[in-house]
């Protein structure tokens, strides 16, 4: 099976249907008798709704119904929730304000849904939405996190807009270390706000069957069971057992399709309101800009204390995080447990303290976006360390090397709660420096200078916590759900294998990777394995895909279900081979009596399980096993990225010349899929560094509401990446030794790019480092010599 088993770069199974137009996305689904919904959204960042005249829309031909927040409230629909409790340092709970599915009395960001218009056709629904008369009384708005504390209140009962004032680490130990430090390096920086921009916009079709009293929701979701849970337990759209959520092919998520949004609740509820006709909604791209949860948006002050030799003594971090107008599903955890816990990075900094204050503003809610907290932590550390190296005249690779957690120190307990299990940071650094020809850089810089270009090199040594998450750890830190994963292996009479997973693939290639796993584990042909996901009616209850968890957690559940298949198969084989079960060994799809040539293939054993002519006593027929896996720890992928840029000093344009990524993902199942994941992550990380940034004006209008103004990275903005995944240090957290690879690129890339740019022009520029920002920095820079 090695040909298409673990470690083989098998082309992705799913790609044929995607590239030939045979994918089946939510918008491709049309149900009989379907209606169309258009949401009427607030044009103001903050306003009181003084009047809604439903009749104005109901008079439009084809309009079937108009529903408002009052209707939803009258029907007992609950609030959308934030499912992770974060407590302030004074012990008080975070201030989670109500988040109605349709605004009631007040709107709090441009795009806040005010009403839904349902009509026979999409065109008529648009006409109705346009005709709906809504009157507003505008209120002052606050958009920037820096002004939130003293700004107008987004929610009247949340003083200073302060959601929580949270801390992690030992403040006293940090203060003591700073007091004796030979050097303190300080940096203030902005984590720019990003718009996720999945290729497929969000869509939902809600449908109610009056006969069975069941609701079905087709949806762009990364985690259909989480949607079902929240929509039933909190929003009260339907009882959990009467709600089926189907996430068919989904065209990218990057976090933005984890969350439980207003629209999917409304269309499901509305279908029953209009007598059971299905209600379909698909957002426009401009709605996606306004309404899909954004990412990042921090303002941070970071201080690093060092001794005279450049050893890190302590790190102190103060961050203000903008969570937007409402708390989205996991928003509270992103700037806290997914951020401050990573502030040790790859280093043995003995004392770390972080204080994070999260604020409401009149902007789109902010939640997890590829990396979620970890890019923010990695950027902070890696740019701050570069600054320390420059100020102290130490080579930037050397200062990192001096402070790495040594490879013989694992498991390593950080001062910020996590226990790293494996790693060899010096090995990935060495490999990356060698591949990037770090030593040869001065010659390349000199050559660029002769062409009038400024050349810089940047290093970023990132770490992330993936495989989210050990349930007990997560729950003890405030998570409202367990974060295990499930799998079911269902074999058929003819020896084919169906893998039902609670994880969800929306671009990751699970159908391929999981098939390889099962093919290798059970010794069946890769082509005989089918992966099924995304339907609460058929798959076991699962927690979905985010936090680079599908393989490390979901994959392990699959392995364990396979173990049960093999164990049962051994009983049946022993019976058929008239041997003791203890004498049966299993290898490459064959059950064999040890030391003999007596054997049965797994297909023969599976057939026997379904056609039990001769069968062991006390063994159930059938070959269908399930497993749940709750990981004992996170996994800790880490690596080194080296980026080289050239800057045109006349225009400030930054061009990425080379980018080397050396990642330790542990064991790699499909190197091609992994490489693709890294490429995508790097593109998004480079996008954050140089191109992407959501901008609001002071009144709360999103100025970057389309691709005319929001710059997504394109192929010609990116170099040809050099991506390597060895040497790796497999984790023991799962039997495969895999760590997860989905987010690494987005986590490690921004600092590599910005460090290279800083090296080129002598001054750090805030992200996105647009040509004008770079040009201005060059004009004001005193060009101190970078330490070499």
């Amino acid at each position: 099976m090695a040909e298409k088993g673990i470690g083989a770069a098998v082309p992705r199974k799913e790609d044929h249907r995607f590239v030939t137009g045979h994918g089946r996305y939510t918008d491709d689904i049309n149900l009989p008798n379907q209606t169309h919904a258009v949401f009427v959204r607030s044009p103001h960042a903050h306003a009181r709704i003084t009047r809604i005249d439903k009749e104005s829309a109901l008079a439009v031909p084809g309009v079937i119904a108009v529903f408002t927040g009052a209707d939803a409230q009258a029907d007992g629909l609950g609030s959308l929730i934030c499912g992770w409790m974060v407590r302030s340092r004074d012990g008080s709970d975070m201030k989670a304000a109500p988040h109605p599915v349709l605004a009631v009395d007040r709107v709090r960001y441009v795009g806040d849904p005010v009403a839904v218009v349902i009509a026979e056709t999409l065109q008529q629904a648009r006409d109705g939405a346009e005709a709906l008369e809504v009157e507003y009384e505008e209120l002052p708005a606050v958009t920037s996190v820096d002004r939130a504390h003293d700004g107008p209140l987004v929610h009247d009962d949340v003083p200073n807009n302060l959601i929580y004032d949270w801390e992690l680490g030992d403040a006293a130990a940090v203060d003591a270390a700073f007091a004796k430090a030979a050097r303190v390096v300080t940096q203030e920086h902005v984590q720019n706000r990003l718009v996720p921009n999945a290729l497929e916009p969000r869509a939902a079709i809600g449908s109610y069957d009056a006969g069975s009293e069941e609701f079905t929701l087709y949806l762009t979701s990364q985690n259909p069971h989480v949607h079902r849970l929240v929509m039933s337990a909190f929003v009260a759209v339907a009882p959990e057992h009467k709600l089926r959520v189907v996430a068919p092919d989904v065209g990218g998520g990057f976090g933005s399709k984890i969350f439980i949004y207003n629209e999917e609740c409304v269309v499901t509820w509305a279908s029953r309101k209009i007598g059971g006709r299905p209600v379909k909604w698909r957002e426009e791209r401009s709605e996606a800009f306004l309404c899909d949860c954004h990412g990042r948006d921090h303002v941070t002050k970071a201080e690093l204390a060092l001794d005279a030799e450049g050893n890190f003594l302590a790190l102190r971090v103060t961050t203000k995080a903008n969570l937007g107008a409402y708390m989205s599903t996991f928003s509270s955890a992103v700037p806290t447990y997914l951020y401050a816990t990573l502030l040790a990075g790859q280093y043995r900094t003995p004392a770390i303290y972080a204080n994070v204050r999260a604020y409401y503003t009149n902007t789109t809610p902010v939640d997890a976006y590829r990396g979620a907290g970890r890019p923010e932590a990695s950027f902070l550390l890696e740019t701050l360390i570069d600054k320390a190296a420059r100020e102290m005249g130490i080579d930037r690779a050397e200062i990192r090397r001096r402070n790495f957690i040594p490879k013989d120190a694992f498991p390593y307990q950080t001062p910020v709660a996590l226990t790293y299990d494996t790693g060899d940071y010096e090995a990935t650094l060495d490999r990356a420096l060698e591949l990037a020809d770090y030593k040869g850089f001065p010659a390349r810089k000199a050559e660029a200078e002769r062409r009038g270009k400024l050349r810089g090199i940047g290093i970023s040594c990132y770490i992330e916590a993936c495989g989210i998450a050990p349930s007990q750890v997560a729950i003890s830190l405030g998570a409202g759900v367990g974060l295990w994963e499930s799998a079911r292996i269902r074999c058929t009479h003819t020896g084919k294998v169906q893998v039902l997973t609670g994880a969800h693939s929306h671009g990751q290639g699970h159908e391929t990777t999981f098939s390889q796993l099962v093919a290798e584990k059970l010794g069946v042909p890769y082509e005989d394995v089918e992966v099924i996901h995304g339907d609460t009616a058929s798959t076991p209850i699962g927690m979905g895909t985010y936090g680079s968890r599908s393989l490390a957690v979901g994959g392990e559940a699959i392995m364990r279900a396979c173990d049960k298949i093999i164990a049962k198969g051994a009983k049946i084989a022993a019976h058929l081979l008239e041997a003791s079960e203890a004498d049966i060994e299993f290898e490459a799809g064959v059950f064999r009596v040890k030391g003999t040539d007596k054997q049965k293939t797994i297909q023969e054993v599976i057939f026997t399980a379904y056609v039990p002519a001769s069968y062991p006593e006390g063994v159930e027929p059938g070959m269908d096993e399930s497993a749940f896996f709750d990981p004992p720890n996170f996994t800790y992928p880490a690596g080194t990225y080296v980026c080289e840029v050239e800057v045109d000093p006349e225009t400030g344009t930054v061009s990425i010349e080379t980018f080397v990524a050396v990642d330790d993902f542990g064991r790699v199942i499909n190197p091609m899929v992994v490489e693709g994941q890294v490429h995508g992550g790097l593109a998004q990380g480079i996008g954050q560094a140089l191109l992407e940034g959501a901008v609001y004006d002071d009144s709360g209008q999103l100025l970057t509401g389309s691709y005319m103004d929001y710059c997504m990275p394109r192929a010609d903005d990116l170099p040809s990446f050099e991506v390597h995944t060895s040497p790796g240090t497999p984790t023991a957290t799962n039997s495969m030794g895999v760590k997860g690879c989905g987010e690494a690129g987005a986590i490690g890339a921004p600092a590599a790019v910005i460090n290279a740019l800083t090296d080129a022009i002598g001054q750090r520029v805030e992200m996105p480092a647009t040509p004008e920002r770079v040009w201005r920095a060059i004009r004001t820079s005193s060009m101190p010599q970078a330490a070499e």
Partner: protein
Amino acid sequence: MYNFAYHRPRTLAEATQLLAANEDAKLLAGGQTFIPTLKQRLAQPSDLVDLSAIAELRGIREEGGGLTIGATTPHAEVAASEVVRRVVPALADLAETIGDTQVRNLGTLGGSISNNDPAADYPAGLVGLGATVRTSKREIAAEDFFTGMFETALAEDEIVTAVHFPKPEKAAYAKFPNPASRYAIVGVFVARTAGGVRVAVTGAGPCVFRARELENALSADFAPEAVEGVSVSADGLNEDIHASAEYRAHLIKVMAKRAVAAAG
């Protein structure tokens, strides 16, 4: 999109008649600005007169030593044209920088100049080369054609049929694109012609304009260094989240210098 009546005339006369007969009729050329505008319901024409089937509006030919390009000729055709490459290579280069492949395959010369987006590339080419716009009614000098932001000298019932470009001695276009839209933050078209040096700037102001101070300096010495001493004022230049007026003023000089260098 709102409903509208769709027409696809075969002749210019028919198109002119349709335009005159329907008060809220609009012309559709490549649709690269207009279709998105319609989709967002930002325009509500009663009738759409699609010019794509009118053969006489499309094509590239040499005329009087210069070039005449039909109004519905797409950018990609201009960029790839051997005739354009030979007679005014700078114009082919300019067309090659417009939008992306899809835009260049559909977007047209006439559509672009009639829309007169302040950041479009073609207006700089027309003004820089001293081109003449031919319409269903008359001929208009390029400088008189572009009258303001999204405004032209065209009458309601007037259709651009072609543009005539005289052959310059030397010319080149240098563009600093908006990284997001790839429109020009600043685009400078420089030409040395029998009538003197012309420098046309797009993207920087509300409408394409000639940079007289640069023209004067380059008339004295058509060399990149000649640009150095010129001071370009930021007064009246565009300012947005992508570029300040000051940065645009700086870029005008840089792009002018690069265009002169490219013109050789």
